[in-house]
């Protein structure tokens, strides 16, 4: 049955900003879906608020709308575009919930838009906890004993039937948001309240805990003729109790016999049929009692998911692409399996002949107040996947791919501690898992714990524990050995277990280069195997590869001219989808220009690791060793390191030293920009200004250096990304604390002291240089003043307050620096502007986080232009010499994970904390900013009472803001000092108690929903600590709040655009 001829146009809803639980896997699936449907000649209409996505590229869909994902906005798009159908299953929970809203509000009916892929009934049955339980009972599948509650009272009733511990799962939330495990009454009440609050239907499920049961996932695809196939089974190493997104997982399932596997397979198919997923991909999660194999079903998602992205990468089967085709009427047997070059159909079950390991990446170090124990609510921000021919090989590749400084199962426990201390530590870390449990498992083996004991503590299947134990025993066997005495067989034996050169170097008290050289001299080199969906049963024309220490290499490198692009590795705060976007664009441009493009990356969520983004894909960790081996094999003309963020840049020097042709800006130029002293010399030569600064190499001299610079200071360790451990200190005492507690300052890792430019306006400029001429990509004026990390600040393109002269001068300075640094490719500059003075804060000769945003705002694909510069095309040859200044305004707004981390202070500062971004587009700044706020999940305050409380430096500025707010009809309340200033200016303002001044105080007002907007600026540790409760309550009560005065002003401007009136098609904006 070919595709439905009645469908001419389709609307796809994206997933919006990257948040914990919903990352770039939905760009991967959405982009695939768009491509697949365009291929069918359908008109594809797309809405997504996230500009850093490939799916929102103007040529991915016919009409792209970068607008807030809200049913009212989507209705406007439907009204304009009149799509025949809506495909809601590609954009995660966000898209699904929005589709349900559209249906409930009657929009779909009104415009006669059919929902394809999943029906409203199917979504409801899968997502509504009670309906789902009943449906499962109907088909004879067990679910854990559970009770539904819509109130705290109902919850207590349920709990009394179950006891403790209990699992709490809110309905219709993603990533287990708002859920958790309660071991006592206090935790229970806490989680229930939060869960009820976060569930759009105010519904939670209180469930018997099956902690410690084995956990599995099945990825299933079904077509409208009821053909069902399993794409992949996944087994979690971390058993039940840890969210699957936070678990180390392995594909395929390892510890099931065929009989047990088939029970699960049958159940998965039965679930899809019962739920009524008509077409497309779904995932079904199971728990299995390790004692007797009893199987219960945990949940199912009637849409593509993070797991389906993983399953696609793990098998080579493009689930989202196939799901999109099925949704428009095809059946599985009519579709081809691309990986085998179309020689086999899509209606089969992939079989694999390797082991895939996924390990999540966490960022608890960014949120020290957060509870770092893993639970049913997802907390990781990224993941790495690795492929190997054995579990050990794939597991150890994944460990080093994490880029958290480990090369394998590095020791993290001090083995000299007393036996009792060790026991206490292991009991805690193994039983209540945190981010590092697997390393504690390894250390417990080192401490002599038995496998049985570790199993008792962790419930990790003995099969996996035995593998880890063997790795530790192998490591022990190396103690006392000398590197030169190893022979080829020994090295080969170790490499087949996945040990990296660096780990071996550590174990042998040597260094990576020595081990690497020895290994190569002994002829122990990896080979590359293909991911082919069929375990080599059919030949594969697709070059999707992974390394392994085996006999036969299947890489078959060509003799074409090649460009290798190094990707960005696992997502983390500060390095995410924006860089993947740049890598994908670089690969596209090089491919368009006739080069063979080769991608190396290890992040399964991304578009860059889609097998057809580049000509060849090596799914490998981004370490020196792994990258160099690919380069040795492929012998590229050039390697691009400047698009993948800090990850590939960190490799640049070593790769260059190893003779690798790095193209674009040279590693030396990169160093020139990053090395404080060299860079300072350059600026002096160019007569450009920097804030006063010094470098402290030890604690003792830091006080005197600080005195020379003058307070307040921005302090940070050198060479960091995302502002790790960056702080603003206001006095010597504060500085002393920072130097002692926050960082370990040494000769090799000094601390940078910069004068903090208070109240300065910050500006980001992205530019491209071909070595001689410079193209300004765009100027972005930050809304938050200097001091807030640029990745966290909202910004406007074009600038909304800067004079033309200042803008002109910024461009001149950028040009001067780009030329002086001999930049070939992208360069990002951060300026601070105080009055008429321009200061250079930072220059990064590489792709920046803002490149996709600027590209969307200007219509110029900066990364592509830059990549072409790197292979020698001048800007003039590319006809890209003129800066594009759009006639509309684009605002980038950041999105934060604070709600996921209970107890964390949602204050902005020099350390980056946002996970993602959205873009608002408008005819005016006010309109664009309002859209940005709404898209980021914020609310534009309705008429009511505003709370203002500002630090002394902002007292002057607060009056204007107060006046504007008053004029908009808001009532004002303030704490003592601020109230006085406002009252003195003749504006009506009530005084309210600070928290420590007695009750009723401001937090009471927030809790009573009496406040609609909070402008609360603070400085100094004690003031920040005092106002913590205000920010946290505001967050929990969804009250609009800002921690900067400029944010308050912008919010005030946005009031005029409370309702979104107009939606803009990106392609039409660009064609102006």
């Amino acid at each position: 049955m070919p595709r439905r001829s009645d469908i001419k146009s389709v609307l796809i809803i994206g997933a919006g900003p990257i948040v914990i639980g919903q990352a770039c896997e939905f760009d991967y699936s959405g982009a695939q879906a768009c491509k697949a449907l365009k291929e069918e000649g359908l008109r594809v209409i797309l809405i997504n608020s996230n500009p850093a996505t490939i799916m929102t590229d103007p040529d991915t869909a016919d009409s792209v709308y970068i607008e807030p994902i809200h049913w009212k906005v989507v209705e406007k798009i439907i009204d304009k575009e009149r799509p025949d159908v809506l495909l809601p299953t590609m954009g995660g929970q966000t898209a699904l919930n929005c589709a349900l809203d559209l249906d409930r509000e009657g929009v779909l009916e009104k415009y006669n838009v059919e929902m394809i892929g999943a029906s409203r009934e199917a979504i409801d049955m899968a997502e509504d906890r009670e309906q789902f339980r009943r449906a499962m009972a109907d088909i004879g599948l067990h679910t854990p004993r559970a009770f539904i509650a819509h109130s705290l009272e109902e919850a207590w009733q349920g709990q009394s039937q179950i006891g403790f511990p209990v699992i709490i799962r809110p309905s219709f939330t993603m990533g287990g948001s708002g859920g958790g495990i309660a071991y006592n009454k206090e935790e229970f009440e806490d989680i229930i309240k939060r869960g009820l609050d976060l569930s759009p239907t105010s519904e939670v499920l209180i469930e018997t805990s099956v902690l410690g049961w084995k956990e599995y996932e099945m990825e299933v695809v079904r077509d409208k003729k009821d053909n069902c196939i399993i794409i992949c089974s996944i087994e979690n190493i971390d058993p039940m109790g840890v969210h699957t997104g936070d678990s180390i997982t392995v594909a395929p399932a390892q510890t099931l016999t065929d009989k047990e596997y088939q029970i699960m397979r049958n159940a998965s198919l039965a679930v899809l049929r019962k739920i009524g997923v008509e077409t497309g991909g779904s995932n079904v999660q199971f728990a299995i009692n390790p004692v007797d194999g009893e199987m219960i079903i945990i949940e199912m998602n009637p849409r593509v998911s993070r797991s389906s992205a993983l399953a696609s990468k793990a098998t080579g089967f493009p689930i989202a692409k196939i799901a999109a085709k099925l949704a428009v009427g095809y059946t599985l047997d009519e579709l081809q399996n691309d990986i085998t070059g179309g020689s086999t159909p899509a209606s089969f079950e992939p079989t694999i002949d390797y082991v895939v390991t996924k390990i999540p990446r966490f960022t608890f170090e960014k949120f020290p107040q957060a509870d770092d124990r893993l639970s049913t609510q997802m907390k990781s921000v990224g993941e790495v996947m690795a492929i190997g021919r054995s579990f050990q090989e794939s597991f150890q590749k994944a460990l080093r791919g994490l880029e958290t400084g480990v090369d394998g199962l590095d020791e993290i426990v001090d083995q000299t501690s007393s036996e009792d201390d060790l026991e206490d530590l292991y009991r805690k870390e193994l039983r209540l898992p945190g981010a590092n449990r697997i390393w504690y498992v390894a250390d417990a083996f080192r401490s002599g714990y038995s496998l049985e004991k570790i199993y008792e503590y962790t419930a990790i299947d003995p099969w996996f524990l035995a593998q880890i134990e063997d790795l530790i025993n192998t490591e022990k066997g190396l103690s006392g050995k000398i590197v030169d005495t190893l022979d080829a067989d020994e090295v080969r034996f170790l490499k087949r277990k996945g040990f990296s050169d660096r780990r071996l170097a550590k174990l042998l008290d040597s260094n990576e280069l020595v081990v690497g050289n020895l290994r190569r001299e002994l002829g122990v080199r990896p080979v590359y195997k293909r991911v082919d969906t069929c375990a080599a049963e059919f030949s594969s024309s697709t070059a999707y590869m992974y390394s392994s220490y085996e006999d036969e290499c299947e890489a078959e490198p060509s003799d074409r001219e090649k460009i290798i692009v190094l990707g960005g590795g696992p997502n983390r705060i500060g390095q995410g989808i924006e860089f993947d976007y740049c890598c994908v664009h670089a690969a596209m441009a090089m491919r368009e220009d006739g080069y063979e493009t080769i991608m190396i990356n290890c992040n399964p969520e991304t578009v860059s690791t889609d097998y057809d983004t580049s000509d060849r894909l090596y799914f490998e960790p981004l370490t020196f060793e792994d990258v160099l081996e690919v380069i040795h094999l492929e012998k590229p003309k050039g390697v691009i390191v400047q698009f993948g963020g800090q990850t590939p840049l960190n490799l640049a020097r070593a790769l260059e030293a190893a003779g690798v042709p790095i193209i674009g800006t040279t590693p030396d130029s990169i160093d020139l920009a990053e090395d404080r002293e060299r860079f300072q010399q350059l600026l002096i030569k160019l007569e450009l200004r920097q804030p006063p600064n010094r470098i402290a190499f030890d604690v003792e001299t830091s006080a005197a250096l600080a005195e020379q610079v003058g307070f307040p200071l921005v302090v940070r360790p050198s060479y960091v990304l995302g502002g790790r451990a960056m702080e603003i200190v206001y006095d010597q005492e504060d500085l002393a604390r920072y130097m002692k507690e926050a960082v370990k300052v040494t000769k090799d890792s000094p601390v940078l002291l910069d004068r903090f430019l208070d109240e300065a306006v910050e500006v980001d400029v992205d530019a491209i240089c071909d070595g001689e001429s410079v193209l300004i990509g765009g100027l972005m004026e930050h809304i938050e003043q200097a001091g807030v990390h640029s990745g966290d600040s909202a910004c406007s393109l074009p600038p909304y307050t800067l004079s033309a002269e200042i803008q002109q001068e910024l461009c001149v300075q950028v040009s001067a620096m780009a030329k002086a640094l001999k930049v070939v490719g992208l360069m990002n500059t951060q300026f601070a502007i105080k009055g008429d003075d321009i200061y250079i804060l930072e220059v990064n000769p590489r792709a920046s986080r803002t490149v996709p945003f600027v590209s969307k705002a200007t219509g110029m694909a900066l990364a592509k232009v830059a990549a072409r510069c790197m292979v020698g095309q001048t800007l003039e040859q590319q006809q890209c010499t003129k800066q594009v200044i759009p006639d509309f305004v684009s605002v980038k707004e950041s999105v934060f994970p604070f709600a996921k981390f209970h107890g964390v202070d949602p204050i902005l500062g020099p350390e980056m904390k946002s996970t993602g971004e959205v873009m608002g587009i408008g005819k005016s700044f006010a309109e664009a900013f309002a859209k940005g706020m709404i898209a980021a999940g914020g609310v534009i305050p309705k008429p009511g009472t505003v709370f203002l409380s500002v630090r002394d430096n902002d007292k002057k500025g607060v009056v204007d803001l107060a006046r504007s707010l008053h004029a908009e009809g808001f009532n004002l309340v303030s704490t003592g000092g601020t109230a006085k200033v406002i009252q003195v200016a003749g504006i009506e303002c009530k005084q309210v108690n600070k928290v420590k001044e007695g009750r009723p105080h401001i937090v009471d007002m927030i809790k009573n929903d009496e406040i609609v907007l909070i402008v609360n600026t603070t400085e100094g540790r004690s003031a920040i600590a005092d106002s913590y409760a205000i920010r946290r309550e505001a967050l929990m009560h969804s009250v609009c709040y800002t921690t900067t005065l400029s944010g308050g002003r912008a919010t005030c401007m946005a009031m005029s655009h409370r309702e979104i009136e107009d939606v803009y098609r990106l392609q039409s904006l660009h064609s102006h």
Partner: protein
Amino acid sequence: MPKPAILALQDGTIFEGSSIGVDGIISGEVVFNTAMTGYQEILTDPSYCRQIVTLTYPHIGNTGVNGEDEEAVDIHASGLIIRDLPLRASNWRSQGSLGDYLVNRNVVAIADIDTRKLTRLLRDKGAQNGAIMAGDNISTEAALDAARSFAGLAGMDLAQVVSTENSYEWSNSTWSLQSGYQQRNGSRFHIVAYDYGIKKNILCMLVDRGAKVTVVPAQTSAQTVLEMQPDGVFLSNGPGDPEPCVYAIEAIAEILQTDIPVFGICLGHQLLCLACGAKSLKMKFGHHGANHPVQNLDSGEVMITSQNHGFTVDENSLPEKLRATHRSLFDGSLQAVHHIDRPAFSFQGHPEASPGPHDVAPLFDHFFELIEVQTNQVVSARKA
């Protein structure tokens, strides 16, 4: 340290690995199976007689072995080739390790070789004769000799090699998680099953549907079977080439003269087709896996099937009285036929799965539907 082992192929390729079974040398046809689960079922499947099976999934032995997952009493594969025997088996049903199982059953097996390289070789060159030699005194020449002197499977009648010597009754139903295997005294219908190398699960699935099952040796004559007054005759799977099994082809032809429903699987399917006048062919490397899509040509439905065959029926040779009903979506090869004027049909793959997906199980129901129709007709004829 494990002892060394080598695998030699007729084309001269040598793989060096380690022994995971007993010392010795064995030869056979080297084939690969891409199923990721079910190694114990595969090893004990009589259809693997004289074959050395390569399992493409690298870790084999993860769940150990148990008394429930065997398709026959013995291991029938001549040898086993895998990438890695895990350090530890883990499963609540496990009763021992795969390594011990191989040793106790006297099987020669090799691990730690690049099984993907081997698979690609078999895919490109076709199934190869080969030999595994394991132990301390390995000789490449001896292994190569053994590989090259293996006669191959074409023209080999292996059904009578693996078939039961005596008839017996079967009364176990299929395994379930809750209650394992159960005894059932089926009385609804009597089915006589020819054992050409039958897998246990086929018998269980017949019992599940209420049949009394009598298993008879491969060479049992049609007359003997008909004297047992069966309501249905089942033709089992089995190893080797169907062509030399003349006794079976003749017996089937005779049974087809009656109106007794006949259902054949795998070798049974080939024999049924041959009995109707079709021709069989040796395939390049056969179908061995648990992920093969097969399409029902009438309904368009696609089923994921378990497959294990090195010979196939040439669809072009089908006589008019046989209608092709299913085809493989991998290579378009014939997967099933139905007789146009007899209640007889057969399937090339494995509806009994074990290992593999259960999608094709409804074919057993079809067999019973045919039996039911036939029985009712007989009853009404008698009444009339």
